[in-house]
């Protein structure tokens, strides 16, 4: 029985659509792609009064033209996929701008309801919206909601279910006589040729706008009626109507300087902007290390307990040396070592989520636009780079917001230089072991060096490449808002879950694999790791890595294993040196001793950190690069180039560092 209502959520970016959608669907949502394109589509279900509603979320769009993938996808969804009712989420504090999309949606001819979101902000500002006049003028129901406060949700759903059968007037905007006449004539012609068409008026308007998609789909000769594109006229007249609505409906337009503007005066100040940004990033990393470390203590204890318990258990069943070693020195050492970094990762993602949710990220694009311009990119390219501090994979995908192909490619290639969270365990471990009081500085310097390298590479690329028109920055700066605990909670939990899953899958397997190649050699099971296959491979690399200060076969093996996932470098080190709890004091001391025996000093440690920062990213990142770059040639470049850069820079730093220290 088709009791299932299909409801589409459509609205501007930053209007609270996602928050509202989540409020209804909770965590029960399915994420996929819209058919044929790589734009995200979210589907969920909600249950109200014994009815099941299927909710479909669309990408945030500003209008329904056919100029961008997001718009096309949403249009297609509404026209072809059988939506019963559309909920148009509108940010009440930006009513004027949001109405542009609303008018277009209504003109489409499907049942539309407006969810007027963020009413609390409107109240705060002393603005008032006439909730009787607005629905009157638009001809659709208007329901005030607050996604964050979760108010009005029931009413909205209720209204949606009752509005389904309504076919309200398509005449929300009445254009001037000339245009209305043409619409009439065109409509008649359309009805003659395409008898079954719904939304005739909308299509007629599209023809007048020279809309590519519609003209291609319904080829008609209308040259006698349509002498030119009326797109600009139609847009302007829509805005005229919007102004009418605003005049009547909006009382007390906020005239006092809004809080957001006050904050922006400081955060986007032409002199303070960048220092503030660097300061904020420094603070984020400070928290990541200190609070993270504080929480880590508990993990270490738990890990130690588990390790002991398992060890005892195995000896109780008289397990063979092979199996015991596999489990303790392989699996537990490798995976356990990684798990203990969870607190650091947690803090990092929490901070990034807060920055994003508060609205600050877009300001960063503006603040960095100057520097980005000097390296041939727009400020918008900085956002993917910033995301790269979390994980390269979504950062590379975020480069889709850049319109220029060359800029996209450049951004994708330099993003891996931004130190991703997976490299954090490497820094934390080695900086704490070798740099004592300066551990945090050493680790923070990695992020700075990564940023500088990314900028330098982009700069060089822009000098070598062809001189082309730069695409200028264009980004909306939403209102600042207090980060929503619920959405942040969901997001960070997702990240934590991801981390745990990664530990239990990729790192689990990688640890076993590393353990295997380190314990199997020409003679089968070896006593001395130095005789294993792994060692043989590592030893091949020693001459190459020596100038870079990494001339130990163990390091070579660890770095190779980093291709699976960067955390595996730490896992491998654990396995290589037989350390069970690598982040505990005892574990670190043992490791320190073993490394020192091989001549590994602080300078070598720093070299290792730098090499890890810069060299080829993990398999997942490379695979994503291939998908986004769509070119084997550039992907190969993305694999080899970082490797070469890593070697050069590390060698440079190691040699110069050695020289300076030698002088002392």
């Amino acid at each position, binding site marked *: 029985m088709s009791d299932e209502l299909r409801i589409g959520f459509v609205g501007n970016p930053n209007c609270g659509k996602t928050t509202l959608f989540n409020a209804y669907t909770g965590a029960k949502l399915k994420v996929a792609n819209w058919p044929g394109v790589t734009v995200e589509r979210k589907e969920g279900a909600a249950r109200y009064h014994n009815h099941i509603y299927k909710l479909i979320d669309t990408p945030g769009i500003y209008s329904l033209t056919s100029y961008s993938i997001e718009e096309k996808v949403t249009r297609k969804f509404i026209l072809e996929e059988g939506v019963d009712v559309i909920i148009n989420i509108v940010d009440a504090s*930006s009513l004027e701008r949001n109405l542009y999309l609303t008018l277009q949606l209504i003109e489409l001819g499907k049942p539309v309801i407006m969810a007027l979101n963020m009413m609390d902000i409107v109240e705060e500002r002393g603005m008032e919206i006439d909730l009787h006049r607005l629905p009157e003028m638009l001809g659709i129901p208007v329901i005030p909601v607050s996604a964050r406060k979760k108010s009005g949700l029931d009413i909205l759903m209720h209204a949606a279910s009752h509005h389904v059968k309504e076919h309200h007037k398509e005449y929300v905007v009445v254009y001037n006589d000339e245009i209305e006449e043409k619409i009439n004539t065109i409509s008649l012609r359309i009805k003659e040729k395409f008898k079954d068409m719904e939304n005739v008026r909308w299509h007629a308007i599209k023809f007048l706008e020279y809309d590519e998609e519609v003209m291609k789909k319904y080829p008609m000769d209308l040259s006698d009626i349509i002498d030119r594109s009326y797109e600009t006229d139609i847009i302007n007249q829509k*805005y005229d109507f919007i102004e009418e609505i605003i005049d009547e409906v909006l009382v007390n337009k906020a005239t006092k300087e809004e809080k957001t503007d006050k904050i922006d005066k400081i955060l986007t100040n032409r002199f303070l902007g960048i220092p503030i940004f660097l300061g904020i990033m420094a603070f984020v990393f400070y928290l990541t290390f200190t609070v993270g470390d504080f929480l880590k203590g508990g993990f270490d204890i738990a890990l130690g307990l588990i390790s002991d318990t398992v060890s005892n258990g195995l000896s109780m069943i008289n397990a063979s040396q092979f199996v015991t070693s596999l489990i303790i020195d392989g699996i537990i050492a490798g995976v356990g070592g990684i798990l203990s970094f969870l607190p650091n990762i947690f803090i990092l993602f929490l901070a990034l989520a807060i920055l994003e949710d508060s609205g600050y990220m877009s300001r960063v694009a503006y603040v960095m636009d100057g520097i980005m*311009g000097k390296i041939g990119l727009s400020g918008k390219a900085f956002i993917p780079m910033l995301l790269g501090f979390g994980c390269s994979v979504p950062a590379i995908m975020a480069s889709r917001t850049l319109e220029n192909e060359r800029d996209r490619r450049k951004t994708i290639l330099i993003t891996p230089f931004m130190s991703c969270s997976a490299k954090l365990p490497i820094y934390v471990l080695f900086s704490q072991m070798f740099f004592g009081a300066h551990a945090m500085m050493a680790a923070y310097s990695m992020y700075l060096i990564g940023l500088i390298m990314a900028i330098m590479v982009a700069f060089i690329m822009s000098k070598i490449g062809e001189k082309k028109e730069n695409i200028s920055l264009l980004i*909306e*700066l939403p209102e600042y808002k207090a980060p929503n605990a619920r959405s942040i909670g969901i997001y960070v939990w997702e990240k934590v879950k991801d981390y745990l899953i990664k530990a239990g899958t990729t790192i689990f397997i990688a640890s076993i694999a590393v353990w295997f190649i380190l314990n199997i050699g020409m003679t089968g099971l070896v006593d001395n790791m130095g005789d294993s296959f792994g060692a043989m491979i590592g030893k091949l690399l020693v001459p190459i890595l020596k100038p870079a200060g990494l001339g130990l076969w163990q390091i070579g093996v660890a770095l190779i294993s980093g291709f699976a996932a960067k955390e595996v470098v730490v896992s491998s080190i654990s396995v290589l040196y037989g350390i069970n709890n690598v982040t505990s004091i005892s574990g670190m001391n043992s490791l320190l001793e073993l490394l020192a025996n091989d001549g590994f000093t602080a300078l070598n440690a720093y070299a290792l950190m730098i090499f890890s920062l810069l060299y080829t990213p993990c398999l997942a990142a490379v695979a994503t690069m291939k998908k986004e770059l769509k070119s084997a040639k550039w992907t190969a470049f993305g694999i080899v180039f970082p490797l070469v850069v890593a070697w050069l820079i590390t060698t440079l730093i190691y040699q110069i560092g050695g020289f300076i220290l030698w002088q002392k």
Partner: protein
Amino acid sequence: MTLLKGTVGNTYTVKEIDLEQITKRRLEALGLTDGTKVTILNKKENGSIIFKVRGTRLAIGRQIADSIALKEEL
């Protein structure tokens, strides 16, 4: 005179926008049409500007700023 030469804190009226279609439409969807009033909130040395149009805050780069022609007024 274009938006690029505007002063922070002032309000101007847009005369026309001289950009390629895609960007122009994007700006229009954000509310920037001929005859609209814009207020400049912030300006950087390299020409990037933050301005307000129809209650929306936009940040644009130098090139776009220089393509927005303004009506001479006051």
